[in-house]
């Protein structure tokens, strides 16, 4: 059989792919433990946590300027949080609207989807032009924020659309037939059932916004977000402190992921106790 050769070959290919995917991060992690005199390259002079300390401002006067991450980290998290809330609400509302068939739904769908297709640098430029024409000052919590929502709302919308596709409408009708108003039905039946989807939409929005910088570049004004702070270091010489920073932010993201996983697990556990009737009905 060909698959006797094919399977291991493809397996090896997939393993090589994973190495390709993770290689740079592994190298970056190794080099983040570079000694104080070492540069952003091999060989590693001596293993130390120097660059982590430097990053956190724990080392004495250093030959390298500290990365301006403190405030920008806070801004990025706030921005991502604002974006998450707004785009999830918009996404849920729009997906709910798409459950009824109506004229003009096709163009509306593509208008929303366009938000994730348009390159960030273009809408960023457009927004910068617009705000300077209208005399609105640019700020991460204003001009950047609305663009982040433009980007993440389509993702939230698609996630919710997929969730509603699998949603059994009769449970809502059951609630209505019991005399429960549409609003209460949404609150007590629809929302609890789609909640895992809402959580996924939120995770999507948060990660995308937290990491977004093409849309922020022209629109953030004076105060930088985290990705902008990193981007600023591109033009100058890089030092291992960026690597240390990369490792730390990745760890931070994983913490976020774990929190999401725990929330999800708690929810599905509860759902498993009352497992859905459709699996063995």
């Amino acid at each position, binding site marked *: 059989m060909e698959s006797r050769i094919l399977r291991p070959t493809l397996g090896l290919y997939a393993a090589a792919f994973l190495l390709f995917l993770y290689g740079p991060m592994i190298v970056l992690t190794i080099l983040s433990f570079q000694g104080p005199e070492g540069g952003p390259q091999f060989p590693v002079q001596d293993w130390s946590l120097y660059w982590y300390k430097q990053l956190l401002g724990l080392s004495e006067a250093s030959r390298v300027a500290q990365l301006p991450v403190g405030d920008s980290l806070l801004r990025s998290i706030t921005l991502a949080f604002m974006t998450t809330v707004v785009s999830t609400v918009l996404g849920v509302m729009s997906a709910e609207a798409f459950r009824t068939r109506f004229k003009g739904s096709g163009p509306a769908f593509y208008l929303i989807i366009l938000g994730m297709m348009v390159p960030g640098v273009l809408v960023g430029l457009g*927004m910068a032009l617009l705000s*300077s024409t209208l005399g609105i000052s640019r700020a991460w919590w204003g001009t950047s924020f609305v663009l982040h929502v433009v980007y993440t709302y389509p993702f939230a919308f698609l996630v919710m659309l997929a969730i509603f596709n699998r949603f059994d409408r009769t449970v809502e009708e059951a609630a209505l037939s019991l005399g429960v108003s549409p609003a209460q039905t949404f609150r007590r039946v629809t929302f609890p059932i789609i909640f895992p989807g809402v959580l996924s939409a939120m995770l999507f929005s948060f990660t995308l916004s937290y990491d977004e910088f093409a849309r922020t570049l022209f629109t953030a004004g004076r105060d930088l977000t985290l990705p902008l702070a990193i981007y600023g270091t591109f033009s100058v010489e890089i030092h291992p402190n960026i690597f240390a920073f990369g490792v730390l932010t990745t760890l931070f993201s994983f913490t976020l992921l774990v929190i999401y996983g725990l929330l999800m697990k708690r929810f599905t556990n509860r759902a498993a106790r009352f497992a859905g009737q459709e699996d063995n009905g």
Partner: protein
Amino acid sequence: MTALSTDSPMPTETSPAQLRERKDRRRAWLLLSPGLLWMALFMVLPMCMVVYVSFWTQTTFSVNSTLTTASWERFLGSATYLHAIGTTLRVWAIVLAATLIVGYPVALYIGLFVRNKTLQTALLVACVIPFWTSFLIRVIAWRPMLGTEGAINTILMKLGLIHEPLTFLLFSEFSVLVGMTQIYCVFMVGPVTFMIGRIDPSVIEAARDLGASFGTIFRRIILPLSLPGVMVGAIFVSVMVLGEFATAASLSGRKVNLLGNIIVSQVGSLKWAFAAVAGVVLTLIITAVIALALRIVDLRKEM
């Protein structure tokens, strides 16, 4: 979902069904309107602004709204900028092909050959995990990998395969292509795996029982059924690569100038009208690519 009960006085000629339909439609548009309004104000309007400003008059440090085609003439008359269009298209084509070549076999392996659901999920998660590192960090991570004193050169020298470090690895178009392929190939792997995973194994089983070779099965069953996934992946990759500038800025040492880089540098020197022209050109290219892809696949059905 609030009860949008708008019980208007009932004209006798409209049936309850029509009234209900009207009410449902009104509710749908009400639910949709904040989102559409947001998109119109913060996406469509800025894009229109880009087109508009591309016809403004550019002076040294500012623009004014006197309409002119001067910026367009300068752009289209400049070899450098036409060259940038060429570079953008070339990088796009190569990265798209590379993500397909790199990603498709992986998707085939995960979607078809790994039948253990847990392992399948684990592999997919492994593909997605790098996304939880900042995009810019992932880009910059290629520097210590490809540099003259980077990992690859160090290993090759240690192995005695080369004596001089390879200099073409970093700060070249090559590094940009490698970086983009690594960053974007997951967008190909995901949709393709999804489509291949949806193929009913019994169909393949049946074909095999009828004596079809793997080549035939692949050509006749797997390839056609995975094609929508490839198209969705291609749309994702295209849109992102065409709008790119950070990877080129970080890894090319200014040797590769994409349209995105031109926009950024023009904005940096306050040449707004010029940046707008580059923006319009970029929009046209992306529209053409998406339109082409959408002719082949209906995105709304595949989502």
